[in-house]
């Protein structure tokens, strides 16, 4: 009985708790891993967070971790079970990106983040919207994932499987990727913590590219401290990604100055969310922070700007999927017919829509009107933030304007779906770090707030976020 009780308790541990227990040899990494595999076996039938469970690999890694622990060679993540979004490559493991195109694709190499986390235990690959394009996980070519807080609702997206796995104790932490909100919005919907690092802070090598000037990998965790631990493990310059760098900036903070953008509290924001985020801001004020009402005047153009730049980059990145070197789905009489058949059958509707949109906005007659224009608006959005950060240390607002919606509720209204990313896309366009943390509930559904910092100031972001979290708990 003692053993059974131990198994039940193991799956809700944070990284730090699991680490100290492993260190004190209260249980082994193999026992911990087995507890998670059992949990997945029992729980994932209803949540469907995982596309692939890598039992064999996980147990092999756990055994290796136990050896290291025995020898006293462990660090904070040794033997910690985690889940990886299925658009990051683990060598010899299937990597689908949520697409039929890659149904049988076996990764020939490790992503840099995987190399950096190789002392962890990889429990499996999590569900996502196809090629990370979506806000609900409903665009996965395989199945929808349920929100563990309410099974009829979406977990958010595109890193919905990772968020759901963390929220339902099917892993200790997970990796997600964020192009326009794909870490922060699902973290918010599932009531967990999600960090989108500064552009360039984490290597993208081995991440299946969606929009290369916006994509970043980041941690999805049970608390802020864990997000910091994982971020410190995966960050840093990588010779395989020329956009990565080692920069970390610090700003001395005596009295925290918080910017509250008036544009983030306007039309379309759910009343309960507004109230919860404002309560959190009052909490900071009561604890000595200075609150400044600020303006990010180009906010209303951010989503339109994003829906030109992201599809443009995607149309170029996804040109590589032609069924020739891998992923053959169909044959064709001629070479051109072969391309057409494979791409038409391989991609889902949302992906095709974005490829066509991006091809259109990059085409000779429309390049200036759409793509070039969007790049200029992007500059204005970036400058809005730069101006504000001369006065404040952090910007706080809601992560999402709406609560998690029901599965199927928005599939016929793509624009309404896109609008759920309205507060997150600007951050990617400007390349800034931002974290979503839980700040309340409405009818049992989680509410999240987003804290945004200047580039490469993740340290301040963690510090300020923890003030709220530590005092509240």
């Amino acid at each position: 009985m003692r053993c059974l009780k131990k198994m039940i308790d193991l799956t809700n541990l944070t990284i730090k708790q699991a680490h100290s227990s492993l260190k004190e040899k209260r249980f082994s990494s193999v026992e911990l891993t087995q507890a998670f595999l059992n949990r997945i076996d029992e729980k994932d039938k209803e949540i469907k967070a995982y596309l692939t469970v890598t039992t064999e690999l996980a147990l092999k890694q756990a055994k290796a971790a136990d050896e290291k622990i025995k020898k006293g060679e462990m660090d904070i993540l040794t033997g910690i079970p985690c889940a990886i979004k299925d658009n990051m490559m683990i060598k010899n493991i299937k990597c689908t990106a949520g697409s039929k195109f890659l149904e049988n694709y076996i990764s020939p190499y490790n992503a840099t983040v995987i190399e950096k986390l190789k002392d962890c235990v990889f429990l499996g690959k999590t569900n996502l919207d196809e090629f990370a394009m979506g806000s609900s996980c409903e665009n996965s070519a395989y199945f929808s994932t349920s929100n563990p807080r309410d099974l009829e609702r979406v977990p958010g997206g595109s890193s919905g499987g990772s968020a759901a796995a963390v929220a339902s104790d099917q892993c200790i932490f997970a990796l997600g990727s964020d192009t326009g909100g794909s870490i922060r919005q699902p973290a918010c919907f599932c009531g967990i913590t999600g960090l989108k690092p500064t552009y360039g802070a984490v290597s993208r090598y081995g991440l299946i590219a969606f929009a290369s000037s916006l994509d970043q990998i980041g941690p999805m965790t049970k608390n802020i401290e864990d997000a910091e631990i994982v971020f410190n493990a995966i960050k840093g310059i990588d010779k395989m990604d020329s956009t990565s760098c080692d920069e970390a900036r610090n700003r001395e903070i005596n009295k925290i100055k918080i910017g509250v953008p008036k544009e983030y509290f306007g039309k379309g924001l759910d009343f309960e969310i507004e109230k919860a985020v404002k309560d959190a801001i009052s909490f900071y004020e009561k604890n000595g922070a200075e609150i400044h009402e600020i303006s990010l005047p180009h906010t209303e153009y951010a989503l339109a700007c994003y829906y030109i730049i992201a599809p443009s980059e995607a149309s170029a990145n996804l040109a590589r999927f032609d069924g020739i070197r891998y992923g053959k789905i169909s044959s064709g009489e001629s070479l051109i017919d072969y391309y057409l058949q494979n791409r038409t059958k391989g991609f889902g509707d949302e992906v095709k829509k974005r490829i066509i949109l991006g091809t259109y906005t990059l085409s000779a007659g429309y390049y200036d009107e759409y793509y070039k224009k969007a790049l200029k608006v992007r500059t204005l959005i970036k400058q809005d933030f730069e101006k504000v950060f001369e006065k404040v240390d952090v910007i706080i607002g809601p992560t999402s304007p709406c609560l998690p919606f029901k599965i199927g509720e928005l599939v016929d209204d793509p624009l309404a779906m896109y609008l759920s990313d309205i507060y997150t896309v600007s951050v990617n366009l400007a390349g800034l770090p931002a974290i979503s943390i839980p700040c309340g509930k409405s009818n049992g559904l989680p509410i999240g707030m987003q804290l945004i910092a200047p580039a490469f100031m993740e340290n301040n972001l963690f510090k300020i976020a923890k003030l709220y979290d530590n005092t509240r708990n």
Partner: protein
Amino acid sequence: MISKIAKLANLISENKKMEKDFSSILDYVNKLKEVDVSNVEETANLSCSINVFRKDIEEKKDNALILELMPEKRNNYLVVNEVFEEND
């Protein structure tokens, strides 16, 4: 025309829902026309990167897994449709 460039079969004219979605998104992004961008530079890239060069020497890589993924191969070469047709 555009879907031909994108190497997708002619989807828009065949798929009513996609056609509707596509035009609603185009209408939405046209919002950018309101913004005055005179004298504004473009931001295409945010990275702090500088050019990185590697030594010009052959890198030995393990190709076995990549070869494994190929749909059809002969003597470790990828088999593809012919690029030029007889009339070309």
